[in-house]
Every structure is written in C-alpha cells, then in structure tokens.
C-alpha cells in the first residue's frame, strides 16, 4: 500500500514503529500530487511538488510528528503566500503564523506551504470563484468539489493530502467534504482560534479538519482546538482527547431528524441515502425521531445578510495601501481605491461587498442587519430547544451531490441554496460534521451531517465513528483517478 493513501493515524503508527520516515511520507504525497494535480487542481501555486514550511530549530515532537497537513489559502503561514485565491492579495506573505499553524507545529506536524484552492475569500460553494481557476471533483472531474474549501476536500479525497484544514462560514468545510466523500468537521464557534484566519464573516467563521476518516478528524481537532488569548471569541473551556470517545456505544443515543430539512429541493438519491443511514443508526441502538427547527426557512436570507455585512467590513482593509495588489498609476487616492478594488476582487466578492454595504447602510440597517440578528437568535433557540431533548440532529449535508462545473455560476441564488442545510449550524454556533453516507447511482458521494450542542464535538465524533465502522467496504471506496 502506498503511503499517500493512508490516514494520519495509520501513518503515525508506522512512524512510531520506526517503519517509515517523515521524508518518505512527504515524497510519496508529493509524487502523488505531481501525478494527479493536472486533473484535480486541489493546490494553488503548485510548482510540481509539495513544499513545506521551513523547520524552525529542532522539529517539535508530538502526536502529529512527521505528518503533513495541507492548509487552505486563507490561513496565514509565516513567510509563505496566503492569498485567499484573490488577485487583491497576490504575493502576500504574512509575517506570522495563524494560531492553528503554531499549534500543529508544536504537535510536530509538517505544514504543507503549497496551499489548497478555495473560492476567493471563501465566497462560494464550488471553488469556481478562485482567481487560480476551479478545482475538480476527484470522483468526476466534470463536477465541482464543492466549496469554499474545495481544494482541501479534493486534495484529501484524491490522496494528495493526508488531511487538511478548511474553514467553514456557512458550510465551506462540510459541503465540499460531502461532495468529495470525505469527513469534514466544523467545530463549535469559539472552539478553534480564528487568529490568522483571513476573516470572511467573523461571527460565523471556524477552522476545522477535512480528513479521510473520523479518527483523523478527532486527531486533528485535538491539535487545533483550545482557547487562544489572541482571539477574544475563543472560549476557555477544557479540550478533551477527542479520540477517546471513538468506539464508544451509541446505544440509546437520541437523534432528531428535522422535518424542515426533508422537503422539496432535496435530491431523491440524497434523501434515500439519509434514510438508509437512519436505519443504520437504529440498528446501532440509537433512537431516531422527527424534530422541528421552525425557523429553518429563514436561515439562508439571514445568513446572506449577516455574512455579507461582516464581509463588506472585513474586506475594507484590502485597499492597496499597505500590501497585496495595487492598481498602477491612479491619479488620486479615491481612484487608487476603486481601481485596486475593482481590478483586485472577483465578481462574487464584489457582489457580496455591495450586498453587505447595502445591508449596513443608513436607513436599511434596522430592516436588514438588526432584523437578521433577531432571527439568528430564533434559529439558535430552535437548536437549544431540540438539544434539550436530543443528543444530536441528523440531516443531509447538501440537498444535491456534486454538480457540474459552470452549472450554477450564472445563478448566484441557486448557488446560495446549495448551503441551505449547513448554514444553520454557523448561525447557531453549534458543531457539525459531514460524513460520507453512500453514493448516487452515478457514483458520486453523498454526505450526511450530524449536529450537536455547544462544545459537544465528542457526541458528533462518537456517532460518526460508529456509523463509519458499521458501513460496508463498498461505501468506503476511493475515487478512481
């Protein structure tokens, strides 16, 4: 078996036994990427091999010693390009590491500095809004890998990465994970430091792992989770060993299935896959019942007001004054601003900046932003109520499997609806995981989403792991690239 095909946990085991070296892992992975990148385009600025962050002194020893981690292009890596797949940040090299990168380093991980592709500033659900061009779905290269962390998901699915970090503002980890048949976890808001994650919507963004299986998800979360004094929104609550809950029984676990999620718009094959999974849960001893999250229908509009409002402000710093792209020969400061931003941002970024600016404008603030905040509270309360009685909620990750490249590019609304099941978890701040739950007749993976209460990542991991172990080898196949 090739090293690139193994999981992080398996590699750690082999390393520990001294049977392989860290260099062998990296070169296996790099060769794999060199062979498949032309088709997948999971990485950006790929120069034929995977680069890694230079070692600083003696590499730290820890649970991830010698294991490479791939990183989305919106997570800061010191002295290595971090461009958010946007022209406006072209050539930008941060002078500091994101907190998650420092944590991974101190656990011994080797950071791949060739970054993974994404929608520009994480604006999108297909990775088509990247200034470097789209990534492809390893299961069908005519299809998108999902987004915005499409590069990370595609890299993991195609064995071009052992595992990867993504960021999730409205489903950007989970939806591409489901499209690519891998595991994607969005932690509780505040569980993982956002310091060094280039902000899209600060009240919604979370960094999380995209992995080949549930154990690796727990392994990576162990490393990146925890309070960070540099992030005022990170929460100072103990971090358990997330691998400890794996293998525990899920007997008696109470699972809610929101009726609002199983309505029109859902692909029949996705629906069927979910129903089969629920049967599997019952077989494992869990109790499944229908629940209601009555404000679900408002999630998409609320999200697109809050997320764009925050984004319009977060992206104001890209003005050409201090770093990144600057339009040449502008005759005044205002011309410099508008030409830099006009030429530096892609279409979707501009659309969202304009939407958000409008939502915050004088005379519209109360009707849009303030109202959206109130409805957000109602959505939060829906979940709090359900989690009073249930351990978790299970739903599809996305209403459809991966769609074709270009299919939704002309219709932003259709694209936005792709996140309809994932957005609520971000608005509520709760953790959610997407795990593969079968395939369509066309051979595309389908993902299932499990959500639970604040800081109950263990519940998610335990159930996801039990499910993963119970399904057939057929359902754990890899894409034939």
């Amino acid at each position: 078996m090739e090293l690139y095909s193994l999981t992080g946990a398996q590699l750690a085991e082999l390393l520990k036994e001294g049977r392989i070296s860290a260099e062998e892992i990296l070169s296996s992975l790099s060769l794999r990427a060199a062979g498949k990148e032309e088709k997948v385009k999971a990485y950006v600025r790929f120069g034929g091999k995977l680069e890694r962050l230079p070692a600083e002194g003696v590499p730290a020893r820890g649970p991830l010693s010698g294991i490479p981690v791939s990183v989305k292009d919106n997570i800061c890596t010191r002295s290595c390009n971090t461009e958010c797949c946007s022209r406006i940040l072209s050539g930008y090299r941060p002078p500091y590491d994101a907190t998650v990168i420092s944590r991974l380093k101190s656990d011994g991980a080797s950071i791949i500095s060739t970054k993974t592709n994404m929608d520009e500033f994480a604006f999108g659900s297909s990775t088509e809004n990247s200034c470097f061009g789209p990534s492809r779905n390893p299961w069908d290269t005519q299809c998108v890998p999902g987004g915005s962390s499409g590069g990370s998901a595609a890299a993991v699915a195609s064995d071009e990465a052992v595992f990867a970090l993504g960021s999730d503002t409205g489903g950007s980890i989970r939806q591409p994970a489901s499209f690519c048949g891998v595991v994607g976890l969005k932690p509780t808001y505040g569980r993982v430091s956002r310091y060094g994650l280039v902000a899209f919507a600060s009240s919604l963004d979370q960094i999380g792992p995209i992995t080949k299986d549930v154990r690796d998800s727990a392994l990576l979360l162990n490393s990146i989770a925890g309070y960070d004094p540099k992030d005022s929104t990170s929460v100072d609550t103990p971090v358990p060993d997330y691998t400890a809950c794996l293998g525990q029984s899920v007997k008696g676990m109470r699972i809610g299935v929101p009726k609002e999620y199983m309505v029109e718009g859902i692909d029949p094959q996705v629906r069927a896959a979910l129903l089969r999974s629920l049967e599997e849960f019952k077989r494992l001893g869990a109790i499944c019942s229908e629940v209601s999250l009555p404000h679900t229908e408002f999630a998409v509009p609320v999200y697109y007001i809050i997320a764009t409002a925050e984004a319009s402000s977060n992206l104001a710093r890209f003005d050409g004054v201090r770093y990144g792209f600057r339009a040449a020969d502008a005759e005044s400061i205002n011309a410099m601003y508008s030409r830099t931003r006009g030429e530096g941002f892609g279409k979707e970024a501009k659309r969202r900046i304009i939407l958000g600016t409008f939502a915050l404008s004088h005379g519209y603030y109360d009707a849009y932003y303030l109202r959206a905040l109130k409805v957000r509270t109602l959505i939060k309360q829906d979940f709090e109520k359900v989690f009073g009685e249930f351990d978790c909620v299970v739903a599809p990750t996305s209403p459809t499997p991966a769609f074709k490249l270009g299919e939704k590019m002309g219709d932003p609304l259709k694209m936005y609806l792709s996140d309809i099941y994932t957005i609520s978890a971000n608005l509520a701040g709760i953790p959610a995981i997407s795990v593969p739950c079968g395939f369509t007749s066309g051979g595309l993976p389908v993902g299932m989403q499990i959500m639970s209460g604040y800081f109950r990542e263990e519940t998610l991991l335990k159930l996801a792991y039990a499910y993963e172990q119970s399904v057939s080898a057929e359902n754990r196949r890899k894409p034939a690239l």
Partner: protein
Amino acid sequence: MEYEAVIGLEVHVQLNTSTKAFCACRAEFGVEPNTNICPVCLGLPGALPVLNKVVLSHALKVGLALGCSIQNRTKFDRKNYFYPDLPKGYQISQFDLPVALAGEVRIDTPAGEKCVRVKRVHMEEDAGKLMHDAEGSLVDLNRAGVPLLEIVTEPDMNTPDEAYAYLTKLKSVIEYLDVSDCDMEKGSLRCDANVSLRPKGESRLGTKAELKNMNSFKAVKDALLYEIGRQAEILDGGGKVAQETRLWDARQAKTFSMRSKEEAHDYRYFPDPDLTLFLITDEEIEEARAGIPELPQQKAARFMREFGISAYDAGILTADKRDAAFAEECIKVFPSGDKKPVVNYLIGPLLAEANSRGCGLSGLKLPAERLPELVSLVQKNVISNLVSKTVLKEMIDRQTTAEEIVKSRNLAQISDTSALDGIITRVLAENGKSVQDFRSGKENAVMFLVGQVMRMSAGKANPKVVQELLKRRLADA
C-alpha cells in the same frame, strides 16, 4: 438681531496606557515611524483585536469622575470608512452602548456656576498619521490603535468663554485621574465643536456647523468667536446657515468649509464581531471608583476648609494637579496658623513668575520649603515685599534658598534707626520743597520722601520705620 449661540463639544483624550488598545504594541510617542506596530494594529489579514483591560478601567474612572452612569453592558462597534491612515478600513469605536452616559461638568461663568451635561463617554482606537512631501504621502502607523476616550457634551454652552471654561475643567479632572497627559500640542487632547445660533429667547436649535482642527483651547475659543460672527452675518442677511463641517485655519483666523451634510460619511456602524459584549459588574465599578483620587473640586473645598482660604484662591491653586500638590506642601510647611500670607504669595508673585516663564507653579522646580522661608523673611521684616520679588527670581534661577541670597547680596532690610538717619538727613536736605509742602499741611508729601529714602537704600530700608523716623524728624525741626 440678537442671537444666542448654542455650543456642544466633542473631546478626544488619548489615554496614557503603556500599550495600545487592542494589541501589545507600545503606545509611546515620538519614536521612529512604523516601529510600534504588529499584525493587529497594521490590520493585517487574519489578525484580531483583544481589549487592553487598562483602557476599560481608565474609561470607568473618567466616566465616574464626570458623574456618569456606567453601563453594565458595553460593546465595540465598527465605524467604516476608507482613509490611508486607517489600516482596517474601519475604526473600532463604540456606538449605541458606550461605556458611560449622562454626566456633568460644573463651570464658573460671570453669571455663576453652570452645569454642562456630558452626554456620553466612549472608548475607541486612534488612526495612524499621514506625512506628505513632494514625492508623495507616507503613513506612520505607530499611533494606529492607541486608545482614545471620546467625551461628548450636550449643547449646553452659550459662549466661547464657557467652552473654554469647560475644556479647562475637563482637562483638570482628567489630569487628576492620571489617565492622559492632555497635551493638545502632542495631540493627546483634541476638540471638535458644534455651534449654531438662534434668536435670543428662541428654544429651537438652529442649523449647526462642526468645527475641526483647533490645536489649543484658545483656538477653540477663537474659532467659536469667528464662527458665531460668521453665522450671525448670514442670518442677518436673511440667509441660511449650511449644515457642514468646517476647518479652523489659525493663521488666517477663519473657518473654511470642509464637507457639506450631503458629503457626510455613512459610517455603517455595526457591532464588531471580533470583540464580545463586555459585562461590567458592580464590583468592577466600585473598584474603579476606589481608584479615583481627590478631584479638583473636592481638593478646592478641602483647601478652603483646612487653610481658611477663599473659593477663588482655592480654585486657582487646585486647577492643576501638580501645582495643587506643590501649593499644599508650601501651605503646610508655612509655620504660621494664618496661611493667608503664603497663599497670597502663591497666587501673587509666584504665579506671576510662573506665567512669565510659561510654566505652572510646580514647573518652577522650587523645593516646597523654600517659598514659606521667603514669606517668613518678609513677615519678620528681614526683607521688604519689594525685595522679596527679586529674591524669588534668583531663588528660581539659581535654585537656592532665600536666606542665602539675602545674605550673599546683603539684601536684608534696614530697620536700624542709626543706619537710616544718615540717608534721611540727606533726603531732607535734597528735597526742601517736599519738606515745605509737608509743613504747609500736605501730609502726603511724606510718602514722596519715604520713596526717596527707599530709592537711596536700594529698597532695603524698612518703609514703616522710615516713615516713622521721617515724621519724627519733620515734627522736631
């Protein structure tokens, strides 16, 4: 027509914290450009703000000292606008939940004490600084992220003098709290003024102009005076005052339109999602209250009580914290129970000396025991009041004691009658006309003769003794 001006002030005070408001960079002044910077205050992608707790405790102190009610819930908002000195494209400020609301500052006016209501006190970060030269513009971000407090009044002042009095009082309170050095020249205290006119007796407010770019309290007063005149002229001519922001040009002593209401920014304030809601407990408020030192008003009241001095004198002595400490020390050291002589000396000759040297009482660097020594010498008739002023100057210039100067320069007052007799004989001989005047009933002539004796003795003669001796000699002859 006769108009009444309505004035409101917005004061920005730079807090004297050792580090910036949202990062660990030093907040010091006058260092090499762009040396006190980090990813946070540079607004680099991914960097996040964390509130410096000292900023909050300073804000609480100021709020409490101004009699505000401290808000138990306070949050930060983003004020969005583009400018090259604003690295994030927004300023972290406070909008609808400022840390303190509804306080007051009492000022003295010719019509008696007046209460200027403080509308709100809020925390925010400063922007950087632009420097322009022939080659272009440069940005220095050392100041970006330095903490400020904005203190906003209600439109409660009616004259430039009242605005001046408010600023003086506010500055005094803030200096007492030791939360800012309040140096307008360094920009650590900045003031914008809103002013409108209305016909006397009218209660509705007129259209206001906002004045910016005043670099001293005097400039605020001058700009207001000018602006009141300008608006009155417009109104008298039947015109309408435009709502706009105007810049004060100190050289031309005029205000100029900067932007109209239509051009005003829409700042799109919204809660900063990077900073959580701050809950301030009653314990924290009490802790801040306990940290507030004696304030000028309280100190003045105590001076009146303890030293038996007038409200006016106490007001002068307590306006500046360091001066007040110096004055108190002087008064305490003065051996007599009657403190009037030393107080008079402080607000008389010493203050005049300080003013002429452009510093405060404490800026004269006089050890506190030396002034009472000088006053005692006058009291004991060792030197005259007149000579004492010369001695004082030298005490400051040479940093030495009064006694040393009196001795080395032989300035002791001559009260010895035998020593004075000779001078008096000469004066009487040289001023026959005055002697005759006196004898013909012009009693005042004696004062002229006293003056002549004083002059001949180089001011050292004791004028009382001289007068007595003169009268005796004139009567004898």
